[in-house]
């Protein structure tokens, strides 16, 4: 019997730890189309080139029992006093029920906002480095 997937079964984990206060995540994949059109062709032809993936997530700015911010691994990658280590990557797993995508990624931007009358949120953007490790989210 078929089923719909929803945010009720959604989750995001970073470096093996599930982030509890994730409101949404997005994942996007793209593949370059390299033109192989030659003289004499009357319709363009293409071959796949490089594949790339990126995404974003929105988390509530929330402190856990020990006082630390729950999304610290993500926020601290960019919001920090020192230089970001050049080889720093995080292992992401974005899932909904039995479907997921897993990859290593670099955090490319972090935005944190405070607005009167609302809770603080952080928006994090990431870019995947290397191939996907697991990609059942794509239907395979």
């Amino acid at each position: 019997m078929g089923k719909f997937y929803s945010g009720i079964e959604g989750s995001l984990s970073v470096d093996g730890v599930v982030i509890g206060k994730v409101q949404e995540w997005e994942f996007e994949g793209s593949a370059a189309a390299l033109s192989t059109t030659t003289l004499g062709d009357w319709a363009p032809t293409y071959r796949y080139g490089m594949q790339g993936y990126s995404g974003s997530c929105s988390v509530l700015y929330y402190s856990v029992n020990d006082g630390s911010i729950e999304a610290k691994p993500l926020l601290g990658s960019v919001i920090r006093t020192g230089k970001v280590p050049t080889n720093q990557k995080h292992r992401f797993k974005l899932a909904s029920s039995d479907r997921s995508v897993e990859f290593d990624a670099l955090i490319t931007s972090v935005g944190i906002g405070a607005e009167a009358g609302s809770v603080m949120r952080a928006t994090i953007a990431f870019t995947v480095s290397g191939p996907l490790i697991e990609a059942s989210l794509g239907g395979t």
Partner: protein
Amino acid sequence: MAVYLGSAGIIELTRTADRSFRSTMDPGDVNPSERRFSFDFPNGTFLTGDRLALRRVNADGTSSAQLLDFVAPSGWGDGQQHSDGTWYVHVDALGGIRLYNTWQDALAGSPSAAIALQAPGASYTITAELADGVAHCLGQIADFSISTDRDVADVTSLGDAFRQQWSGLISGSGEIRCFWDWRPSRCGDVDGSQETAQYFHQLILRQQLGSEFKANLIIKRDGTVPLDDTLPQLASRTALFYAVTGVVTNVGLAFSPGEPLQSTIQFVTTGEIALRYELPSAYLLLQEDGGKLFLQDSTGYVALEAAL
């Protein structure tokens, strides 16, 4: 089950403002023989009956130790001049101001009852700020309403089956309808102690100091009992009220032949909304004639602590 009628409700109004106004006092601005002065302020900045705190400051706005010398020493309770003082004002049609010690005298505006003035020695900068006065009942209320609202922020996370909401900011709004009048009449046991609807018509047009007011919106008055009259004596003497600071947002007046003139005043609240219980009068310290004891700065009464 107790049922209360809306006729038990009343509004106590206290004039206030959250901003001050700075200007220059020149010797030519003061007319000691008329006990009248003026300085540069837009029309409608100050309203008759306002309790004004005047302070002499330096040109950069910082506090000055110099005296507010255009007010005669008799204007202060101790008979000595100071660098600041607080008085009720009467503002005439030309923007001239007279100072008074009581609200009723300010409304009456009699030159002979005004505080004596004298010519200042030189020009200097002053600030004028509305000080909270004593609460006066708002007269001829046809009806009023108040509602309190609470914002919510959605904190639903992935994995939640039910929406999660976080309670945020509190706000309020309300509407008052009064029969229009401009001359205060009797409130309780004091003649001329009533605010009128006309005050709100002036308040919404006050540019420099804003249109704020403080109000106690009384749900149950001291002495009110429900229709079945079964309250214990102490409970019947207790008053319940919302204490708010409001900002007037809309004032309307509709004219119709043969119909009474009514003002409709709409407001939103700013800052805290408090729902309070007031001790019955028996717990206020009273004088021999039964009157309440005012504080020297006219901001309240003296009460006794009591276990309820």
